[in-house]
């Protein structure tokens, strides 16, 4: 009797699985960052695309390990991802290693409504042949308005000022951005930051400046950490992606304010893994053609405060879809917010990242 039961269950499972698989045949695995960001993509891209084409979209929130995972998948000859959302620096690495498909931007992407070719519409933001730009975001600081009294921070160096702003602050657990900010507040001219950071003494100088607040720093590695810490009141200020802070301030109504000074711009976009079967590649390209057209990029800005990468999308950015507030003042590129900005220096970090990373990790462990 037991044997019969086992056989029936196994047989049922065997029959059920292919049936189940059949409904999922036309599916697309899209890798992204999770959180409010994935939600904005879901509403601006995935939902309309699924409705239009009938494709099932499966989300995998693994962008943080995209490079390592793609390498491993490639080595094992079994790439399960179809479209991957990565930052520009990762796209460059993947492209150099031949893990990402080279894109002909003009033929594979939609032209702007006025006929401008995609390569012109995206302009300088196409930083790699494999990279399909999507948004411009920035890493900036948020602070608890109720913990700073009548004197809200308005200068990046307030982060290093423990006397005026006692309490914990959160910084990303990597040297990028932190080293630049430290040098800037140690009296280095903005124009000289990278030439100082090239030298070993300059790196030590940046770490020494970070050392003055090391005891008060909580190091984060996921974009959601700082919003949670701010909501808990565990930190007085912390860096994270500006869209996450927008969500904390406007959607969750937490007592948090923005410190835009010395925000660092960066690009984020899509790549398609190299070596997909022709059928999967065609499906991925069809999605990309749809999701990066002028209207769709402008739509994403209705859900999160990241700037669309196409020039033709910028005038179409309007109000938030649910809150009805104007999105323009929350964009990192708004003139009021962009008085003092950095642009992520790809060349510098490509050359120095490994050395400075090692130094930074050793310093962290001290």
């Amino acid at each position: 009797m037991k044997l019969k039961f086992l056989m029936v269950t196994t047989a049922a499972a065997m029959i059920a699985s292919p049936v189940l698989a059949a409904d999922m045949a036309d599916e697309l695995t899209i890798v992204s960052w999770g959180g409010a960001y994935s939600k904005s993509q879901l509403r601006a891209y995935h939902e309309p695309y699924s409705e239009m084409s009938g494709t099932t979209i499966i989300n995998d929130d693994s962008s943080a390990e995209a490079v390592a995972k793609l390498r491993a998948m490639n080595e094992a000859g079994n790439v399960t991802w179809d479209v991957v959302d990565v930052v520009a620096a990762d796209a460059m690495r993947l492209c150099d290693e031949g893990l990402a498909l080279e894109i002909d931007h003009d033929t594979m992407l939609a032209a702007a409504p006025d006929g401008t070719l995609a390569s012109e519409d995206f302009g300088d933001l196409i930083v790699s042949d494999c990279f399909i730009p999507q948004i411009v975001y920035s890493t900036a600081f948020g602070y608890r308005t109720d913990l700073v009294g009548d004197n809200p921070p308005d200068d990046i160096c307030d982060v290093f000022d423990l006397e005026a702003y006692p309490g914990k602050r959160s910084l990303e657990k990597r040297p990028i951005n932190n080293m630049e900010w430290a040098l800037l507040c140690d009296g280095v001219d903005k124009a000289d930051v990278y030439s100082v950071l090239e030298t070993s003494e300059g790196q030590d100088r940046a770490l020494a400046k970070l050392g003055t607040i090391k005891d008060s720093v909580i190091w984060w590695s996921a974009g959601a950490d700082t919003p949670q810490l701010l909501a808990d009141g565990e930190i007085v200020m912390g860096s994270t992606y500006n869209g996450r802070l927008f969500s904390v301030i406007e959607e969750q109504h937490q007592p948090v304010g923005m410190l835009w000074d010395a925000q660092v711009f960066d690009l984020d976009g899509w790549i398609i893994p190299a070596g997909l079967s022709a059928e999967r590649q065609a499906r991925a390209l069809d999605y990309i053609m749809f999701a990066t057209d002028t209207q769709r990029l402008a739509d994403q800005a209705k859900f999160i405060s990241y700037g669309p990468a196409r020039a033709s999308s910028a005038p179409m950015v309007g109000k938030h879809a649910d809150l009805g507030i104007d999105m323009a003042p929350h964009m990192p590129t708004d003139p009021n917010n962009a008085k003092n900005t950095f642009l992520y220096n790809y060349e510098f970090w490509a050359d120095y990242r490994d050395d400075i990373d090692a130094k930074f990790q050793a310093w962290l462990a001290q």
Partner: protein
Amino acid sequence: MSSKFTENAVPVSLPFTLSLVGLLVAAVSFVAGVSTASVFSEFLLTVVGGAVVAIGFAYALISVFGTARAAMVVSALLGAVAGAAIGRLGGALAGLLLGTAVARFIFWIHYREYRRPLAPYLTSEQVLWHYTFRFICGAIFVFLITPILVVMPLSFNAQDFFTFTPEMLRFEADGYSLKHYRDFFTNNEWQRSFKNSVIIAPIATVLSVSLGTLAAIGLSQSHVPGRRAIMAILISPMIVPLIISATGMFFFYSWIGNFLEGTLGLNKTFVGYVKVILAHAVLGIPFVIITVTATLVGFDRSLTRAAANMGADPVTTFFRVQMPLILPGVISGGLFAFITSFDEVVVVLFVGSASQKTLPWQMFTGLREQISPTILAVATILVVISIALLTTVELLRRRSERLRGLSPG
């Protein structure tokens, strides 16, 4: 109740009660001071001030009230008023409980009530150890259970953070909501991962139970050559660090997957499920082998010979004689295998692709990327399901024991 212990209660000396109360409150304020005070003088003030206030309060209660009941009522009221001033309804409730407990404790000490349940000949040291032991046991229990309990109220949070909001602490209806539960039941990602867990775990369990039971029976035969070595290999997934097995499995199953997809032309999603189910079955097998081997120790081999003597073939003997007797071991092994697969996150992250995303995977990435209290709602649901499952199994076990006359009533 109060008259029962006041009629013949001989109070201990007042200094003893007061110093004990002062010492305990100082210990509590020490913890509070360490976590809140920023300078040493503030810290000292917290500890000493707390102790002095507590001693004064205890002295007042003891000298004014003759019975514990009256003292408890007054202390509870005082606590409630003070609590309400700090935290409204929630504070009042907490103050009420705290006030009652404090007064009860003071009188419990002062009137030697702690001696009452114990044998009268115990020395002071033995009494002290009796209560210290209970305190340690209670503390262990608290440390085991609190992390699970904390999750439950947080899952009803109206905000999208893992935070007890002021509204929640004041027990206001606005502070609570079912939206995270709604999110779990309506969000496609959560539903997909729940469905995947429900598909993968049972099939992996059936595989591990069948293979593990057969292996255990085979390995319990004394004539099998090299059975210790075979046993060690079969159990190794439990001993080898999971991350190492997972890395190995990633390459091994990628190769199998490529063969199934490329050579046999099977559907990619189907192959994905097969890979994860096989990997989870491998992880579950050691649990089944261990529990079944343990049950087989008590199995009388002459029963199989008796069955053979009466004309039963080995398969019939297995299902009709051996299986019913070792069933408890098989079932508990199966439960472990099921829970292993249902809880497993490392191997599925390596072997599976996003269409095989299970609940733990979704919870894991959720925790890292979005810190959504939906995770807490899911955790609460899972805890409730586990409690229900274990209760059912225990009730069934008792019922069958009762039916077989193994235990009374």
